[in-house]
């Protein structure tokens, strides 16, 4: 028995006791009282118990409570009690928050909302389309932990599985479409199909994750190829521009030509009217004169003749009168010539053989 006590003494690092004497007071310096020691120990135990028997569940969480390793229930938000000393354990799971996983990019927490180009994580974002072209896709999967127990105890790594499946599904969906479809009109369908398939997988694995939404971010051709895609857009616009220019030119020229045509016709009509009217006028005048002529033909004839010559002869430059049998004609209007051309010789006469 004393051996045991010595052993215990050694363990407890007490100085070995001599004969049992009651040593009240402090004559021998600091004494070790078992009562004090165990009292302190007990106090510590109580504190520890208190510490490990109370827990708080935040509003966005639930707590999975295990007793000696076995799940006994889920605790709602608030203050709760459990068995101390780790007999009961509480694991906190954020079931009320919408969580997200990003693919092909990462959101820097406070600065830029997200990367500008899908160049940050090419391993995640590069994939093949159905027509075997390369494309870069950035996307986000929004999910929630719908079953806290399954999330903790269905799979070892549910979040990693979510990521792996998301990549696999996205590549399957994109690989089942033509590249230009993915780049343009197929985005919504791709996002919906991906969400459905990822959710189906999560349900099959029963890992407590519920996929809420899949959102495509940037979907672009690889950087080296992008200028060529832009070139196509530019060329398409150039086509439109050329066609518009030509159409506009035609739309300006044709009405103008119509106008010119109408004017030509109007001018012709004007000429026609004028000609016919003038003809009518002349004809009428002739008819009138003719009627008068018919009454006194000889007189009219002589009158007309003389009137005409009276008007004409003064205007004529030179008149030469020819008489039968004469070799040279007589200039009738010699004087006039002399008047008109004072610088010339007065006796100048045009001689005609």
């Amino acid at each position, binding site marked *: 028995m004393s051996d045991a006590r010595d052993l215990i003494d050694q363990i407890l690092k007490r100085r070995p006791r001599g004969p049992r004497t009651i040593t009240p007071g402090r004559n021998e310096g600091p004494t070790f009282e078992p009562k004090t020691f*165990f009292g302190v120990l007990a106090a510590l135990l109580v504190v520890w118990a208190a510490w490990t028997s109370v827990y708080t569940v935040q509003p966005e969480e639930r707590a999975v409570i295990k007793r000696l390793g076995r799940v006994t229930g889920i605790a709602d938000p608030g203050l709760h009690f459990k068995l101390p000393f780790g007999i009961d354990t509480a694991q906190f799971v954020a079931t009320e928050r919408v969580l997200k996983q990003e693919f092909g990019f990462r959101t820097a927490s406070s600065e830029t909302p997200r990367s500008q180009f899908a160049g940050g994580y090419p391993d995640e974002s590069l994939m093949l389309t159905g027509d075997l072209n390369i494309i870069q896709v950035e996307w986000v999967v929004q999910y929630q932990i719908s079953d806290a127990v399954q999330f903790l105890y269905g799979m070892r790594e549910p979040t990693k599985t979510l990521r*792996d499946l998301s990549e696999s599904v996205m590549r399957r969906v994109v690989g089942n479409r033509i590249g230009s479809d993915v780049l343009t009109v197929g985005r919504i369908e791709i996002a919906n199909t991906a969400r459905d398939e990822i959710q189906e997988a999560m349900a099959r694995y029963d890992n407590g994750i519920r996929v809420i939404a899949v959102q495509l971010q940037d979907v672009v051709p690889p950087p080296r190829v992008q200028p060529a895609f832009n070139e196509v857009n530019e*060329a398409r616009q150039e086509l439109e521009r050329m066609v518009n220019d030509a159409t506009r030119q035609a739309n300006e020229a044709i009405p103008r030509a119509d106008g010119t045509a109408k004017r*030509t016709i109007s001018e012709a*009509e004007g000429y026609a009217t004028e000609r016919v009217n003038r003809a009518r006028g002349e004809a009428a005048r002739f008819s009138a004169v003719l009627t008068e002529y018919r009454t006194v033909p000889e007189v009219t004839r002589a009158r007309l003749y003389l009137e005409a010559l009276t008007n004409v002869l003064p*205007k004529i430059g030179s008149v030469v009168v020819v008489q039968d049998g004469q070799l040279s004609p007589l200039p009738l209007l010699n004087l006039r010539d002399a008047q008109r051309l004072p610088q010339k010789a007065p006796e100048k006469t*045009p001689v005609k053989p």
Partner: protein
Amino acid sequence: MKNITYIVLGLVAVLLVTTRTAFVVDQAEQAIIVQLGEPVGDVITAPGLHWRLPFIQNVRRFDKRLLDWDGDVSQIPTLGREFIIVDTTARWRITDPLQFLRSVRDEAGARTRLDDVLDSAARDVVSGTELEEIVRSADWQVDVSRLSVEDAAALEEADLQRPKKGRGQLEKDILATAVQQMPNIGIEIVDVRIKRINYIESVRGQVESRMISERQSIAARFRSEGEGRSQEILGNMEKELRRISSEAERRAQEIIGAADAQATKIFGEAYGRDPAFYAFSKTLESYSTLGENTTLMIDAKSDFFKYLESTSGR
């Protein structure tokens, strides 16, 4: 005091004994009691407190949950000799811990086997398949009406056909091959998925160049179509302009011709009543064209001079 000490010591002893005989199986675990190297009893799957003999019995724990396997990224040539990078993942579970313990002892050993089997299964299946079959799924369908004209033109006949198997079936094939080739180590491979497929680095450049030239030819086609259509519009415009102006000309000439004809008719009707008088009066009118530049030679016998020498007129 002595009693308290002994009570405490007693508690400590009880505690020590308990830690050697009681053990907790977590919700996530299944356990086997091993005695001197050999398993005893059934697999313990129920979580909670369990008992064993101290010192001679130990507990081996195994994960009860669905586990992940992530393959190495490997370069595999397809049936069409295109080298691609394939990254597979799989889900598996320890279904028979006894067998598991006997054959591979722990997860590290299992993972080695999984690496071998799954990598080779993936390689077998991929190298026996064309790239289109791996990328596309069984419900591959090209809706040509949704594509732009130039993209539809870039498609080939083969692109419009359904793949024989498709991605989903291939993944099932890899799983089936792996399951067949996996020795019985007490696990179940639940599924295999292709996580990533890509061209290898050197091929990527070629494919990108192909994409670039494809786009460039589409752009060139747009431009030349623009040229063609604008030329067509301008040509039609020219044609229309010619038609308008020539028709106007024709119409004008018709009008003028009709007017001339009518004038002629009017003149004819009028002057035709007395052609001789017409000739007379018209000729007289035309004498007024004789002007300063004219030299007129006139016979002395003309009527104008009739009364010059006598009043009776010769």
